[in-house]
Structure formats: structure tokens, C-alpha cells
């Protein structure tokens, strides 16, 4: 923004601020030291007249506002002026609520407030009003990868919202892994008027609806289907993805997209890995997927034993076959759909022959929800036998089969003869290679490591997306080969902005869930395309117009930013300079924290905007007994925890000066070294938990910061400072008592080891 900055300052005197603090002195600090010429006091700035005062100033040309009063988290909806830059000094939660109201504390409390005013003024000077990059226009096309039920549903949902979709299917016909279904598990529970009792009208297996879905897709004007096709290359970013869609005949078309949905579904588990159940040794042991084909072929006629065509009079379903097991080659997870699937298949037999013995051997029967439990009840009503038992072997017994199992109810080993065995096998996510496996090959330092990484990659499946990204070709995976998902609060968040996973590639699921999931992914894809058109960030910094700017002339091509970006947003050009992709960026600032030469910053969050706050703090001399502790706190968890601690009346040492950061990953080591050399006595970093399942929407920021900080020891040694002066803590938003205690502990540590000698 070339336009001139016009500053305005406000100090709210409400909520006890004027009773506890000398506001006139604070105003003087803001004008004299903060260099904000016009600073107004208001008794209740958040009231309509206060807000109007600010609005009038904006109308009169104010572009930069310093608001001192409550925490930046409070009254956010009132102090919401997207057209200007704003800093907020936290005098209420950060100062008066965190400090006891007693004359002996007055001096340090006032100093705290004065520093927050200085910091807010300093920050403001270095904030710029973010402006849209206009790097991409509105592209309403959505790319859906996968021609199964999930992909078709996603395409139909996208189209129903008025957006065009391209559906890329790697097979010659649509339908995917579920196209051979004879019937599907009912989507609904018993109807409202059905009584609670036995022999009532419960939903039965229903038509699968796949042929109809295929017909709908084919007839839809907004959907373009690419059969026998795969993505040879996908490049760009939300709003300007370019995909080379290549078919088996070798023809390639390049289409542009606003966003992408990966709905590549699953592959049936390979039952060859279950020799104990005689799979492959006799055709009379089939998987649940194979049984669907038999049932479809029989089309209502009695199902026959594959080996000799005898009508099946007894069938045993072995649940969790090759699942929920740590055994080599087995799936450690539960596939979620197999219990209701087996009930459905047992009903195939019961429908054409009520006398057919159908036994389901299960450990835990998992039929959740209203529809699930009604379907279980339906199975019981139709006289399917449910037996809690663990199968150990299937052996041939004349023309039939014997299933050996442990009956868990009678607590004894027993066996069962039957004509047919159905193995309830699970879903294996149909995903591309782990992108970080490719990276491990590229970046291996020794030939040995490279070879090991290469071997791992050799067994990896082929790429599905073929992303032309510096951080690999496909979506990152979380566990067991399923693609990434935040997993609790924000199920669609992936580490590749604008590319949303839907269906069993994300977690195991049944058809109904996959269809619901497709709708959600379609929502996110549309939103990503629309946001990209406005140059606005998506979740969690929704609407943020800033994006990383970098000074190429200072860049040393060290590649740290391109490696550490949690979202794979940064590519490299031929000379290994970073190439930022604004709409792939989530504005966490990890690149800024990674950059050793400080050439990356955001308009509304920069090396300077924090550094100047640090420098603005008034540092009393070594003999003052007033240490200064810099706290860099995650704005989503640690900062709110401190706010709420103050709200609860929990006391914090007056020597801290807290700076909220977007993520600990954004913390530049220069902030640490500069604060030490400007006389801070201690530094506390507060980020989120860092363990195997990442917790945060910004993925690994906290872990990265801890790693970087582990290398700061040298700096401390050079400065002849004790290592205890810097600590990194994992702080949760619920740590109301603990967070202030950690700060008080640092104050106690400084009291013990003494003040820093770097006070000038």
C-alpha cells in the first residue's frame, strides 16, 4: 500500500481501567513515545458512541488504529474494521485483571500497561493494510478424482450447487469398488410409526442405486466424465489449478480448476493374506466383496456353492477377517462397514431360504446409530444367528467346510460346519504414495539412506494426483495410509489447501457416510474456489488477505521455507528460490519463522511488527529488581488461557510482556536473539501439544519451534547467558492455573540466577 498511514489511538477507561491505571500517563506514552499524535480516551469504547467515534475517524481518513482496553479476543465483533490496520493493547485481561489491586503493586502494574501501549504503537507502525493479490480469478470448475460412489456423489453435489465438475475415473466405467453391489444396507432407521416390538416392519436391504447414479452423472450437463483417465500432472493452486487429464489411449487434455476433491475410495483387502481361513484353497471361501458378485449374478435365485453348485444351506460370516489385528499383513483398524454388510448378506440367504443357517461370528458387533441398530434388530428378527466368537481356522470337510472358533460366551473351543464361508474383509485406502516418502529419497544425505527410502517408495502405490509440488505428489497421510484430516473439529482440513479428501480414502466408511462425506468435501471445494477468487485465506484465518511477501535479493536459497511449510504451499524455481502460491497459503507464518535471513513477512504480521514490539518495551536497569520476560504465546490457546486466567482472578507476575503469535512455527530466532541482546531476562514460548497425532490447524509449528530453539543454546553461550532463560512450554487453552504459574516460575528462576547483564 503506497497510501500514507494515518494513525489514531484510543484508550478505553472502562471496566476498571481508569480506577486501576493512570490513564493520562498512558496517553502521554502513546503520544510521546508511541508517536501517535491523536489519542482519545473513552469511558466505554465498545458502546455505540465509542465505536462511532472510531468510525468517524476512519471516515476522516484514519488508516491505522491503536486500541487500548480489553484483550484482542474481547469485543472482536465490535472492533471489527477490516478496512484498516489495528493493534490492541490488552490492559484489562493482560494487566488489571492479572494483577492484584493493591497500592504496593501499583507501580509495576502501571509499567506493564505503559509497555503494552508502547508495544501496540510500535506494532501498528509496521502493519500494512493487506490488499488482495488478485493472483487468481473465480474458477468455478471443480475437479473430482475417482469415479466411485463418493466421486459421483461429489460431482452431483457440486453440479447441484451450480458449479461445473470434471470427474476423472481410472476405469472404463463409473461405479468403483461398490459397482457390483447387489443391494445396499438401508440408509434409514425404522419409520416413525413402527412400534417398538418384535416382528415389526424394519428396513431391509435396498436397491443399491448405483446404476441410477451413473445415469444421473452421465445426464448432468454440468458434469464432464473422463473415463480410463488419470492425472498426469496437477499444478497451480486453488483458483488456478491446472490438471493434465490423460487417458489410456494417450490423449491428454489440460483443464483448469478452482479446487479438487480426491474421492479415490478404497481397495478391497487382499484376502490372499488369510491362508488360515482357506482363502484361495477352496472357492467356497469368499470375501464379502466377492459375495456381492455372486448375489448379483444369482439375482434373487438361491445362492450356490461355487465349488459344486450346491444350493447353500448354511453359511458362516467371519467378522474382522484380517482386521483389528496387529498380525503382519492384517489391518490394525476396524473398517466400520463390515458388520452391517454381513447382516445384509446374511439376509440374502434368509430371503430366498428362511431355513438357511446363517451365522455371524463376531467379537464386537458394530452397528451404530439408529439405522445401524435397527438393521441389527432386523437381522435378529429374520433369525440370523449372531455368535460371539473368534474364528481361528477354516478347513475343508468333505464337500463342505468346518470353521474352528472359540465361542467367547461359552468360553470354549468349538467348530461349525457349513457350505460357504464369507470373510468380512476391510477397506484399504486407495491413496497415492506418502508425499514425504518421495521427499525422503530426494533429501537423503547418504547413499545408504537414499537406498532405504527408495525401497520404501518402490512398494508405494502410484500417484493419484501427481501434484507438481515441492513437497510431493499426493496428499499427506496421517495413519494407516488414510489421507490427512484434522480428525475432530475440522474433518476436511488437509495439508494441501484446496484439495479435499472425501470418502473411504479419508477414513473407513460405509456407502451412506461416503455420500454424506462427498457433500461436505464439495462444500469445502466450492468455498476454496470462491475464497481464492477473493484472494482470501481459507480456514482457519478465513478472509485474511495478506500473504507471504519475500525479498528475493536477500534470499540465500536455503530452502528452509519450502521444506517447513506445513501446507506444501511453496515451490522452488530452477535457482531454488521459493515460489509462493498465495492461495495454497494458510498464513501461519511458519515460513517467516524458518527464514534465517528474515526476508519473508506478511503485511499484517512481520519480522518487524513483532521485533518492534520487543524493542518498544522499557527495560529497567540491572539493579532495578524488575526483570523483563518476553512471552511469545500461541494466539489460539496460550493467549486465551492467559486471558481466562486473568478473568478468573489468577495472578501473573508483572514482569511479563506477552506477544501473541499466529503459531510458534512463525517465531523468528531473530526475535529471541534481539530480545536477549536488548536486555530481556527471560523468554517463554507457549505453543500447543506436539505428539504423534498433530493437534493444531497449523500442524507442526510447535514442534518446529522447539527444534529451532534447541539450537539457540550457542547464542546464549556466546552472550554468556544461562540456558534456563529460555523455555518452551506446551500450553493448552484449559491451562488457566498452569499458564500463569509457568510465567511466575520464570520470574522465580530469574530471581535465582540474576538479571541479564545486557541492559543498555
Amino acid at each position: 500500500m503506497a497510501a500514507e498511514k494515518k494513525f489514531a489511538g484510543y484508550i478505553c477507561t472502562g471496566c476498571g481501567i481508569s480506577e486501576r491505571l493512570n490513564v493520562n500517563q498512558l496517553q502521554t506514552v502513546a503520544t510521546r513515545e508511541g508517536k501517535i499524535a491523536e489519542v482519545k480516551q473513552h469511558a466505554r469504547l465498545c458502546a455505540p458512541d465509542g465505536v462511532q467515534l472510531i468510525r468517524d475517524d476512519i471516515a476522516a481518513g484514519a488508516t491505522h488504529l491503536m486500541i487500548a482496553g480489553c484483550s484482542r479476543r474481547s469485543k472482536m465483533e465490535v472492533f471489527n474494521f477490516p478496512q484498516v490496520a489495528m493493534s490492541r493493547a490488552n490492559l484489562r485481561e493482560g494487566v488489571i485483571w492479572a494483577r492484584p489491586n493493591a497500592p504496593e503493586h501499583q507501580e509495576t502494574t502501571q509499567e506493564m500497561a505503559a509497555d503494552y501501549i508502547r508495544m501496540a504503537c510500535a506494532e501498528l507502525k509496521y502493519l500494512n493494510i493487506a490488499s488482495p493479490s488478485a493472483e487468481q480469478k473465480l474458477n468455478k470448475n471443480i475437479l473430482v478424482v475417482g469415479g466411485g460412489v463418493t466421486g459421483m456423489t461429489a460431482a452431483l453435489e457440486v453440479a447441484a450447487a451450480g458449479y461445473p465438475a470434471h470427474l476423472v475415473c481410472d476405469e472404463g466405467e463409473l461405479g468403483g469398488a461398490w459397482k457390483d453391489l447387489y443391494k445396499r444396507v438401508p440408509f434409514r432407521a425404522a419409520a416413525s410409526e413402527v412400534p417398538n416390538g418384535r416382528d415389526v416392519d424394519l428396513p431391509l436391504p435396498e436397491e443399491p442405486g448405483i446404476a441410477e447414479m451413473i445415469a444421473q452423472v452421465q445426464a448432468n450437463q454440468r458434469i464432464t466424465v473422463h473415463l480410463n483417465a488419470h492425472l498426469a500432472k496437477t499444478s497451480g493452486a486453488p483458483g488456478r489449478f491446472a490438471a493434465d487429464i490423460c487417458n489410456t489411449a494417450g490423449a491428454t487434455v489440460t483443464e483448469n480448476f478452482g479446487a479438487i476433491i480426491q474421492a479415490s475410495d478404497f481397495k478391497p483387502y487382499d484376502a490372499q493374506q488369510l491362508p488360515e481361513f482357506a482363502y484361495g484353497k477352496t472357492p467356497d471361501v469368499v470375501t464379502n466383496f466377492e459375495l456381492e458378485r455372486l448375489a448379483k449374478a444369482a439375482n434373487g435365485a438361491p445362492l450356490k456353492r461355487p465349488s459344486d453348485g450346491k444350493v447353500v444351506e448354511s453359511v458362516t460370516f467371519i467378522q474382522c477377517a484380517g482386521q483389528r489385528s496387529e498380525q503382519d499383513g492384517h489391518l490394525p483398524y476396524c473398517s466400520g462397514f463390515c458388520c452391517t454388510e454381513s447382516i445384509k448378506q446374511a439376509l440374502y440367504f434368509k430371503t430366498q431360504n428362511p431355513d438357511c443357517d446363517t451365522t455371524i461370528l463376531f467379537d464386537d458387533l458394530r452397528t451404530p446409530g439408529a439405522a445401524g441398530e435397527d438393521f441389527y434388530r432386523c437381522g435378529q428378527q429374520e433369525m440370523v444367528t449372531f455368535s460371539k466368537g473368534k474364528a481361528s481356522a477354516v478347513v475343508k470337510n468333505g464337500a463342505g467346510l468346518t470353521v474352528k472358533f472359540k465361542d467367547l460366551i461359552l468360553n470354549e473351543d468349538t467348530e461349525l460346519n457349513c457350505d460357504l464361508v464369507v470373510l468380512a474383509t476391510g477397506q484399504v485406502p486407495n491413496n497415492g504414495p506418502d508425499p514425504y516418502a518421495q521427499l525422503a529419497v530426494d533429501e537423503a544425505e547418504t547413499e545408504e539412506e537414499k537406498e532405504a527410502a527408495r525401497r520404501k517408495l518402490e512398494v508405494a502405490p502410484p500417484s493419484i494426483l501427481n501434484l507438481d509440488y515441492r513437497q510431493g505428489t499426493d496428499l499427506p497421510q496421517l495413519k494407516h495410509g488414510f489421507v490427512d484430516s484434522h480428525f475432530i473439529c475440522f474433518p476436511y482440513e488437509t495439508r494441501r489447501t484446496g484439495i479435499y479428501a472425501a470418502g473411504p480414502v479419508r477414513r473407513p466408511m460405509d456407502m451412506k457416510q461416503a455420500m454424506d462425506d462427498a457433500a461436505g468435501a464439495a462444500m469445502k471445494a466450492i468455498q476454496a474456489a470462491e475464497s481464492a477468487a477473493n484472494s482470501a485465506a481459507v480456514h482457519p484465518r478465513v478472509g485474511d488477505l495478506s500473504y507471504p511477501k519475500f525479498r528475493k535479493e536477500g534470499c540465500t536459497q536455503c530452502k528452509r521455507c519450502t521444506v517447513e511449510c506445513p501446507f506444501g504451499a511453496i515451490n522452488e524455481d530452477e535457482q531454488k528460490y521459493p515460489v509462493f502460491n498465495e492461495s495454497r497459503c494458510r498464513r501461519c507464518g511458519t515460513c517467516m519463522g524458518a527464514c534465517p535471513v528474515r526476508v519473508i513477512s506478511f503485511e499484517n504480521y512481520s519480522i518487524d511488527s513483532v521485533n518492534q514490539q520487543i524493542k518498544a518495551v522499557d527495560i529497567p536497569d540491572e539493579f532495578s529488581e524488575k526483570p523483563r520476560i518476553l512471552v511469545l504465546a500461541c494466539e489460539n490457546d496460550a493467549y486465551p488461557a492467559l486471558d481466562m486466567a486473568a478473568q478468573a482472578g489468577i495472578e501473573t507476575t508483572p514482569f511479563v510482556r506477552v506477544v501473541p503469535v499466529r503459531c510458534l512455527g512463525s517465531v523468528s530466532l531473530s526475535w529471541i536473539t534481539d530480545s536477549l541482546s536488548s536486555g530481556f531476562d527471560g523468554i517463554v514460548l507457549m505453543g500447543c501439544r506436539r505428539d504423534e497425532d498433530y493437534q493444531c490447524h497449523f500442524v507442526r509449528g510447535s514442534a518446529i519451534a522447539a527444534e529451532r530453539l534447541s539450537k539457540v543454546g550457542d547464542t546464549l553461550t556466546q552472550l554468556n547467558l544461562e540456558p534456563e532463560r529460555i523455555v518452551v512450554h506446551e500450553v493448552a487453552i484449559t491451562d488457566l492455573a498452569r499458564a500463569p504459574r509457568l510465567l511466575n516460575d520464570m520470574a522465580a528462576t530469574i530471581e535465582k540466577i540474576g538479571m541479564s547483564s545486557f541492559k543498555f
Partner: protein
Amino acid sequence: MTAVIATNETILVVGGGISGMTAALEAAETGKQVVLVEQRPYLGGRVTQLYKYFPKLCFPTCGLEINQRRTKQNPNLTILTLAEVTGLTGSAGAYTATITLAPRYVNERCTACGDCATAVEAEFADEYNYGLSKRKGAYLPYRMAHPARYVLDPAIIGTADAEKAKAACKYDAIDLEMREETLELRCGAVIWATGWQPYDAAKIQPYGYDRFPNVITSVEFERLADVNGPTGGKIVRPSDGKEAKKIAFIQCAGSRDRNHLLHCSRICCMASLKQATYVLDAFAEQAEVNVYYIDLRSIDRFEDFYNKVRANQNIKFIKSKPSSIVADKDGNPIVHGVDTEGYNRYAEPHDLVVLAVGMEPAVKKDAFPISVQINREGFIEAAPENGGIFAAGCAADALDVNRSAQHATGAALRAIQVINRVARAEV
């Protein structure tokens, strides 16, 4: 008077829990106009009352902080709290909703300074803590409440406390003249996200929830375990404040049961495994946890969590639906039943029993303001007959938080499809 501008391109979201918030935000962040109606005085619903989430054991307020920040900044979103949809007429693309707003007696000038709460005296059972603690008659519903605005309990209106609260407020934020209001607004699509309520445990007579203080529900146990809850996170039993080191979790309490709820509530197995970690963490070697279950439903990737928890020596799983609970003279609940694995009778004393109660839809079958397809258990089924009304989250089925957010995101799209059709028709 509350004024809300809405058109037939507006999406109405009924319910401001995690599902409603998610649906409202996803739609608003796609540029749609959304009105979010919440019955409680704050957003977040039952998620606000949870201590931790499974399977990561992280804190719900963390995600809530993000969602609240999203709502505070979004110009497309209008939030009405203490509000209920009492009427709904019309069809897809053209609905009229009647909304009844209960008086908060506190206006938007409230700064959440807390002076009113200090001034008043009468105390009431705190519903946020399921009555496990008291709150004042002027109160912030819970620490992170959004809107961050106090509420006056209607019971103090007309008493001296109301006047004291008003006198204490420096910001003209207390308005004792507030009355119930009704407003009508137009909307093109409705997302019904009214969520769930815990099944009334007192109805399960053999378990004695209404007779034994040391038999509590899973939702109450969440509050007990919360470090910021009524006991400061100390797991103690209600009768005598003694540490509850030996705890029974009874699964399917009132669920999968012809006498109670027929359905499986999906979350309870995982919730009890999660709550078991509270006990195992708090008392380490001294902890003793018994989980009485029919089927352990740690579906899909949750299996990892089940494996992790059951690796602990101090937790036992007993396949059994207990037949009854009695209390001994010290108030210890004794769980009776038969372990169906081997058919052994047991009579096991515990310090505390936690009933894993099921989820029932918050809106009764006959209480919907407009006809929608409802199943036997009272959940809304997706159906073309529902027109422009789409259920999200636990109004549609018993779902966990992740699946609620997933489902609500899809519901937002379905509402947008209707709105976009309206918009196209008007072009």
C-alpha cells in the same frame, strides 16, 4: 426490538452447537447470508461442557476458540441467542420462520466486566455444570461464552437482586424492561441442527440414578474431570467428596434397549474409554476401572485408541449388561450382573458408577414446527419431502463431534444448493 434482515436467499440455521456453528460458518464463509438461532445464551452447545475430545484427548475449547473467532469476524452471520424457532411455514426457497426471543435482560453494551455478578446475592444451580455447582443470578454462562455477555436469571427479575445488578452496571447494559419478543424472517433454506440431550438416567430404575448419589451420568463425569470444573478436576464422589479411584462405566445405559432408547448412540464407548483415561491418569496405579459393555464400538480408526487404553493393567472390560445397582452402608454402589463371557455372576463394589447414557434428539417427535421425515427414534431422515430443510449433526443421527462437523458441512452445501437455485431463478 431485534431487527434482522433476511431474504429468501438467507439460510436459517437452527441450533448453535458444534453442528449448527459449523454449518453456519461454512455457508457464511462461502458468501451466503446466514441467521443462526440458538436456544442457550451462548454458542457451542454440549461441546462446551466436555473436558476432552476423544481420541486425541485434546480440549474442545481449542477448536471452539477458532470457531468463535470465525463467527466474530464474519459479516454474513447474524447470531440470535436465547432464541427458538416456534413457527416455520413455506417451502424450499420461500420459508417464513417465527422466532421467539427470551429476554436476557442484558444488552450488547455489556463488557463482561462482572460487576453485576458481584452485586447480586441469590444463587442457583449451575446448568452448565449439570447442577454440580452454583452460580449467581447475574452470570456469564461459562468462561468462554460467546457472546461474552452476562445473563440475568429470570428468577431474580422483580427482586432486589435485579435492582442491585442494574445499579452495579456502569454501561447501561442491564435492561429490566426486556420482554419476550417474536420476530418473523424469510429464508430460502433451513439447517436443522438442534442436537441431542442425555437420556434421562432416572428412567433406568435398576441403576438407581435417582436414589444413589454415587451413580452419575457420563455428561456429569465430564464436568467432574474438568480442571476448570466444579471440583477443579478432582475426581471425587458426590456423596462424601471421597476420591473415586474405583469406577464402573456402564455402557448402553438406556441405549440399545427395548425399554429405553432403541438406537446405539455411537459415542458412548469412545467417551467411556476417554473418561477411563481421566481416572487412570489421576490415580495411576491406584486406579481401578471396570467397563461393562455389550459390544465395544471403537469404530474405524478409533480402534487405535481402544488398543491404547486397554493396554493399561488397571482397566477391565466385562461383557455384560449389569442387572442392577445397590448401595452399601458406606454409599459404595455395588454392580450386579452376569459376565456373559463364561457366565459368571458378579457383585462388584465401586466408589462411583458412571452411566454412559445415550443421546436422544433434543426436539421431541411432535415438537417440530413443520413436517419433516422423522424415524422411530426421532431423528430426521434425509428425504426429498423435507424440501429445503436439512438436518445437521445429532438431529439426524447419534454422531460424534467429528462426524457432526462432517455432516454439518454437507448440510451447508445442500442449503446453498437451494439458495443458488433461488438466485439463478431471480437473475
